[in-house]
């Protein structure tokens, strides 16, 4: 077990713990902060998994921009004192959590026919260079060559989002 591997394990545990925290803290703002840490952990994990570009984007876009939006919204609505009742009954919630997680994971294992998930995956391509060499270039190549239409559509999607936000945010639509 190498150092990287250990790091991976620790970060994974942290990500899971943070996720747990998101669901089980009563306070909205704590949930948001747990989620930020969850995202940060994931960002590092991405970097560890030969995806440095995604790691960076994860930290910048998700943990940065998106979460700022969230916290902004929380602050605007001034709902920090709102506390969930259900979460108040932690034992019950915990049982539910365990049950659902186990069900889902169990279902997943049932489909992959056991814990050796590898047999359920496609054959890995051998002899290629690791993904983190020329990572940005290669991602960009896929993105702008194979998925150029999708990429363009994302642009539209963002525009749609802008219009949507505008509609929802304006006080009255009629002149």
């Amino acid at each position, binding site marked *: 077990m190498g150092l990287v591997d250990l790091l991976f394990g620790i970060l994974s545990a942290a990500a899971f713990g943070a996720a747990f925290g998101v669901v089980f803290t009563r306070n909205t703002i704590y949930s948001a902060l747990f989620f930020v840490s969850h995202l940060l952990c994931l960002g590092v994990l991405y970097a560890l998994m030969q995806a440095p570009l995604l790691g960076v984007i994860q930290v910048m876009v998700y943990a940065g921009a998106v979460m700022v939006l969230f916290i902004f919204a929380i602050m605007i609505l001034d709902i920090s004192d709102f506390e969930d009742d259900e979460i108040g009954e932690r034992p019950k919630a915990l049982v539910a959590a365990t049950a659902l997680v186990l069900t889902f994971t169990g*279902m*997943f294992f049932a*489909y*992959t*026919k*056991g814990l050796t998930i590898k*047999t*359920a*995956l*496609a*054959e890995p391509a051998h002899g290629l260079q690791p993904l983190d060499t020329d990572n940005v270039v290669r991602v960009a190549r896929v993105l702008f*060559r*194979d*998925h*150029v*239409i*999708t990429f363009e*559509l*994302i642009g*539209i*999607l963002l*525009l*749609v*989002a802008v*219009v*949507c936000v*505008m*509609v*929802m945010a304006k006080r*009255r*639509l*009629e*002149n």
Partner: protein
Amino acid sequence: MAPDLSLLMGAFMVLAADIPLRSQSNKRVIEAITTVALGLAAFFVIYSWRLQTTVVGTVFVADHLAALSKIGLIAIGGTVLVLVRRQGQQSGLLVGEFYALLLFSLAGMTFFASSNHLILTFTALETFSLAMYVLAGFRKQESYGREAALKYFILGAFAAAFFLLGMVLIFGAVGSVEYSKIGEVMRSLPQDSPRAMLLMMGLLLVCVTFAFKIGLAPFHLWVPDVYEGATTPVTAFLSAGAKIAGFAGLARLALNLPFERLSLPIVLGSLAVLTIVLGNVGALRQLTIKRLFAYSSIAHSGYALVGLVGGGSGGPAAVMRYVLIYGLMNFLCFALLTSIENGQRNATIEDIQGIGFERPFFGMAMAIAMFSMAGLPPTAGFLAKFGVFKVALETGHTKIAIAAILGSVISAAVYLRVLVALYMRPKLKEAATPNWEWSLGLSVALSSLLLIYWGVLPGSLYALTAGL
């Protein structure tokens, strides 16, 4: 890609025109732009009708299925315009943003229908979904509208997450999420190998989202709430548009993937039967007309799905016919609803009680719509149902067909109840008075006639779907 792009261009134009024109004339211009965009898109679809399938960058195909669903979607867009003309003022829909979002979401749907790659499917799905969330909540001054938007959004996003997980699993099992590659790999794998199983899990998760969008039980719970909360033209759009797009997507899956090799027929069949039953019994006791149509929309999703249980051969054609006819019936129903809607209150069955004979046009159109919805000859609704049952039997799913057909009996009870109210009960004091704007009246007349025409001479409809 021309039709999709012309819709997008239209949306841009609307947005652009909306800024300088802040006067009353604005509405006219924007409506005109939208109409032209729709017309142009329709023109491109028809122009390229007979062309061979083209694939753009492996993710986008313009084939027959896509063209068919696009023409349907454009028609739905047109009908929404008609409904808005009658009702836009009172619902606050006569603004540039509405038209822009309408066109955007239509474009999203056309992309969705043309997508040959799960990631494009996902993006397109999100595009039209985002627009729809907001359209549903367009009446945001009212709590109903806001509630509809919130429910639709949270559940929609939730369902999208399942899509995503499913896509990932498929990627893991296949190494790609291009439909044709998935299909290839699937055919090459033995049915109970772990890879095939994982693939199936992914596929099922993807299907959850499709099912959510088209309102299949048990993923249908949002449907009546959102439909009721949205303004009537938007409801019409949500039910017909999402259905055409969603079923086009499912049909494309069916065309590419060997459904019969998985246990999908059983799963889809159970979903279909459950949907039919829950949709119809849910509608049995509804008083609000819009909610009733919402439940009926659910039930119709179930019927359309019956056509897909057997997979790719013949199924997609039957399903597309079904949803196209459903779109027509749906428009007719909502147009009739629009015609009696005055003010904010949702019309109930009691409002139309006993007015059938005094308002023969309204009554006849409603009767045709209801008979067609119930699937009684000689209306197009009968042929639509006939088509999907035929496919189910052809592919050997007799039990599903029988269950679905027994569900039809309940549906007959639902729709005949409307006619009972309309013709056979005494008129109440506050009965509604249909109010026709010319385009609405004309389109109601045309669509009623078309329902009968297709019921008697469905040749053209069959020609449309030939070769699927």
